[in-house]
Each structure stands twice: as structure tokens, then as C-alpha cells.
């Protein structure tokens, strides 16, 4: 666990970047620091591995004040990922990843083996190991940066806008990769971003900072969206806060109709303008309008129980019938959520 205890950072020119910040980053969780530019996110992060020293207050790592630890020793035990990856251009990828193991005096062969293992872990082709950083794309370099931070298996990982310099598609895949890795590794991660969507997607807990370096709110993403502490947080969360909140509402409680999904060749229930035609395997084939039984229209699906109400709503908006198709993990249809059912779920979510 990382503890900020009344931490203040005053730069020599008098700028107060962080002001009496107290917060905890629990072991095995992702704590995201988010806020507008200049609110002291980077400063807060870099005080943990003593790249910057606090002016007042203390930072504790599992109860031990970092100020008592020799900085290089401290840093070798903390993974650090920065925006531009910061790879060493003169070293091959495998040796970049093995940087900290080399520093810790690991046997060369063991360090390289570990590096190769990590390259695969972060989703990189092992054939890239012999390349130099300039021969990699930005997204690949960023993955190498993550692998390098994990190489010596540190319990703590600090990440400063690690994905902000890559395009949105690569960013999404890097975020997913991080969540997948974290599910396996259970590191204590402090993640800095100015992107509230990223914060909500990645954070177990999100700390919103305001300019001047004070904590505006610390909460899990769901609470943050449903109960912002003040106008500043509300504004920072943006206008579609309500919609985004739906991604934390489960679909397991949705009422489903099974009569609207019909086997191949059969006809739909009476009085319904649409029914869902199934394939012989039980997967959706398409929506069939009542008066044109030969037509198949677009449909949208969500995985029941796994996907959120936001996905279900999205699925409903994608099909002309206005209904969302619930499927199981194998893509087989388990039922249909009608507009009425979605409506009731939305009403419940709005109350909650």
C-alpha cells in the first residue's frame, strides 16, 4: 500500500504543485490520479519513487517512509512507465527490458530469459527482441516500456500517461492489455492520466485532483459518476456522465423474453411487429419484420451478465426492432431485452 500523508510539494520558484495531499493506493489495485493539466499529477507520482522529494509530509510504502530509502535502490523496486517510453536507443529491445535485472546483478542469461518472457506477456512478438527501439512503432515501444517496468517483478508500478502518445485504437488495446495483465499480476499501480474515460476504465479507485494540487474526490468510478463531490468534479466528468455510469450497471437483472426468438422456419408470435430468427446453432440470424418474413435486419448483441447496461442499450440502438439480443459466452441467444425491459432497468439505474 502507498500512503500519502499530508504531502506538500513546493518548487524552488514558489509554485505549490501538491498541497497537503492525503490518500492511499491499496495493494493490488489500480489507483488513478486524474485532473486538468498542471494539477500536480506527475509531481505526486514522482514523489513516490523520489524522482522528486516532498517538501512536507510523508509518503509511505507499506508503512515505510520512502525518504529513508536510497533513491536508486528504491527505484529498482518500483516499476516506472513514462509517456514517451524512454527506451535506451543504443540497446536492443531484449536488453532494454532487462535493464533493472542487470542493475540488480542477475545473471545475464537469466535476465534475458526473463525479458523474453515479458515481451510475450505484453503481447509482443519475440522476434522483435533483437531490434533497436527506433525500429518499433510507438505502440510497440510503449509495450516494451511496460515490459521493462515489470522485468524485476516489482510490487509497485507507477505509470505517467503511458498511453497518451498513441492513436485511440492502439490506446484501447494497450488499456485492455494492462487490465488483463493486472488480473494476473495484482500489482499496486498508480496511474496518471488527464483522460477521465481512461481513468474510469482502468481505475479501481480514481483520485480527482484540482489545480493547486488538492484532492477533489477519491472514489471508485461508479461512485464518482453517480455522486460527484462538487461542481468541479461534475464538470470534469463531462456531460455524458449519466450514459457512462451505465457501464457500471450489470445486465444480470434485465427481464428477458424468450418467445421472440424463433427456430429456423418457424413463424413469430402473434401480434409482434418483429421476431428474431435463429440459426440452427442457436445464434442470431437477424430481425424479421412481421409483414416481410423473407427479410433479415441488423441486430445488436450483449453478453448477459458480463456486459454492462450501456452495452445492452447500444445493442438495442443498433437494431431496427429496438430490442437488444442477449447472448451467452458462446454467442448463443439466451433471450431478448425489449424496450420496455430496458426502460425499467434505466429507471432503476437512475434511482440507484
Amino acid at each position, binding site marked *: 500500500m502507498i500512503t500519502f500523508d499530508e504531502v506538500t510539494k513546493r518548487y524552488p520558484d514558489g509554485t505549490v504543485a501538491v498541497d497537503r495531499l492525503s490518500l492511499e493506493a491499496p495493494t493490488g489495485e489500480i489507483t488513478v490520479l486524474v485532473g486538468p493539466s498542471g494539477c500536480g499529477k506527475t509531481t505526486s507520482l514522482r514523489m513516490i519513487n523520489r524522482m522528486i522529494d516532498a517538501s512536507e509530509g510523508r509518503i509511505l510504502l507499506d508503512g515505510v517512509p520512502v525518504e529513508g530509502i536510497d533513491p536508486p535502490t528504491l527505484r529498482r523496486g518500483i516499476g516506472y512507465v*513514462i509517456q514517451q517510453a524512454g527506451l535506451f536507443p543504443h540497446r*536492443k529491445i*531484449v536488453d532494454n527490458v532487462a535493464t533493472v535485472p542487470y542493475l540488480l546483478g542477475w545473471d545475464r542469461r537469466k535476465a534475458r530469459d526473463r525479458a523474453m518472457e515479458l515481451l510475450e506477456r505484453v503481447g509482443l512478438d519475440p522476434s522483435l*527482441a533483437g531490434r533497436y527501439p527506433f525500429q518499433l512503432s510507438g505502440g510497440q515501444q510503449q509495450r516494451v516500456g511496460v515490459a521493462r517496468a515489470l522485468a524485476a517483478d516489482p510490487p509497485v508500478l507507477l505509470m505517467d500517461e503511458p498511453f497518451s502518445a498513441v492513436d485511440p485504437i492502439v490506446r484501447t488495446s494497450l488499456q485492455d492489455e494492462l487490465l488483463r495483465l493486472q488480473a494476473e499480476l495484482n500489482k499496486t499501480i498508480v496511474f496518471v492520466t488527464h483522460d477521465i474515460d481512461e481513468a474510469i476504465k482502468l481505475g479501481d479507485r480514481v483520485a480527482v485532483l484540482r489545480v493547486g494540487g488538492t484532492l477533489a474526490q477519491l472514489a471508485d468510478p461508479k461512485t464518482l459518476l453517480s455522486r460527484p463531490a462538487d461542481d468541479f468534479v461534475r464538470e470534469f466528468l463531462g456531460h455524458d456522465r449519466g450514459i457512462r455510469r451505465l457501464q457500471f450497471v450489470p445486465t444480470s437483472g434485465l427481464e428477458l423474453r424468450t418467445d421472440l426468438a424463433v427456430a429456423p422456419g418457424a413463424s413469430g408470435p402473434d401480434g409482434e411487429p418483429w421476431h428474431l430468427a435463429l440459426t440452427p446453432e442457436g445464434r442470431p440470424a437477424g430481425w424479421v419484420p412481421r409483414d416481410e418474413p423473407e427479410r433479415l435486419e441488423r441486430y445488436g448483441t450483449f453478453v448477459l451478465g458480463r456486459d454492462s447496461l450501456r452495452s445492452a442499450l447500444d445493442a438495442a440502438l443498433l437494431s431496427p426492432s429496438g430490442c437488444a439480443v442477449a447472448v451467452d459466452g458462446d454467442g448463443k441467444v439466451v433471450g431478448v431485452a425489449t424496450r420496455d425491459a430496458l426502460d425499467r432497468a434505466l429507471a432503476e439505474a437512475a434511482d440507484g
Partner: protein
Amino acid sequence: MSWLTSFLGWLGEFFGDPANWSGPGGIPARLTEHLEFSALALALAVLVAVPVGLAIGHTGRGQLVVVVAANLARALPTLGVLVLFVLLLGTSSIWPVIIPLVLLAVPPILVNTYEGIRGVEPELRDAAYGMGLRGGQVLGQVLVPVALPLILLGLRLSAIQVVATTTVAAYTGLGGLGRYVIDGFATKDYSSVVGGSVLIVAFALVVQAAFTLVQRVTVSPGVSRRLKVRQPPARKENSR
């Protein structure tokens, strides 16, 4: 074409004369002298300028030294300094010549070493510290390898200047290839002048080539970006 025939004639005369290939005035001896003076001056300059340049570049302290050195290098007439030292110290030892050569060689090395280290991207330096490298390790394992092309450029510039100026040093009665040119002019022995000049030019070219080779060998392909993107599979690395 007559100039060419006489040029070739002089060359033949110079290089064909067996007397020019032996003894204290022979080509091997003069070449060795030239090489010794230049190498000694360059080595001393490197010993002074590289550590100072690294230290100033790494710590950011003492940058004034670099500015002064750079300006002095531009302001001082090498030949004047050379003659001054010889007048003051006499010609009984080689130092009156070596010292000005060192003074001449220091600024390019100092300035380029400093600029090379200073010019390394701050993010890279930051990442190195963030990984847990200590100050000396950051310098030795990251800054120097990345700044190496510029450091070597400084060395090459100095080497060329030293080699050229060593030629002029023959005026002071010292040895080296310059003697052929100077003595040749004095005795109107044009084959000696021409042969000496050719040797000097060739020597300078060899020095250049040597530095290019050193650069090839010591600068990481990741820094010089000399590689094509295709690489042999990494497995080779791994199975060692």
C-alpha cells in the same frame, strides 16, 4: 600536360630514391615522427577534454569553461601560439610544439563532448534515473553511448587539425612530414615538396578513414540508425 608530366616526374624521383626510404630523414622515420607528435598531442587533449566535457555536460556545472574554450579556439592563431611557445621555451625538447598542439586539440573535443551529453533527450535521462541507475551509471551506460557520435566528431575534428598543424611545426626544426615541404622549398628540391605534400594529404585521409572505422565499430546501430528494419530472428540471441 607538361605540369602533369613534371608532377609525375617529381613523384617518381621522390618515391623512387632509395635514400628517401631509410635513415633519420627517410619516409618511415618522418611518418613515425608525424604520427607520434600527432598521437601524443591528441591523446593528451583527450585526457583533458573528455573527462571535463563529460563532467560539465552531466552536472551542468562549469558551462562557462566550455564557452571560453570555444571562443579561444576561434580567436587564437595556431601558428602564432606555436612560434610564441618555441621562442619562449626553445627547441631543446618537443614540448614547445606539443603544448600548442594540445591547446589546439582541446576545444573541439571539449565542446562536442559537452554538447553531446547535454543534447541527450531529457526524457531518456529521466527514464534512466527512474529505472534506478546511479549518476555514474546514467553517464556511462546511457549518456555516453547516445552521445558517442558527437564525441567522436570532436575527436576527428581535433585529429585533422593536429595532423595539419604538426606539418607546420616543421618550421621550428622539429621532424615530421612537413620537413619535406619546408626543406624542399629551402633547397628548391621540388620533388621533395611534391612528394611531401602527397604524403601529408594521404596521411590526413588515412586518419579520417580510421575515425570512420572507429565510429562504425563503437556507435550502436540503434543510435546511428544504420540498420534496415528487417533483422535476423532474435532466437539466435536467445539460444546462446
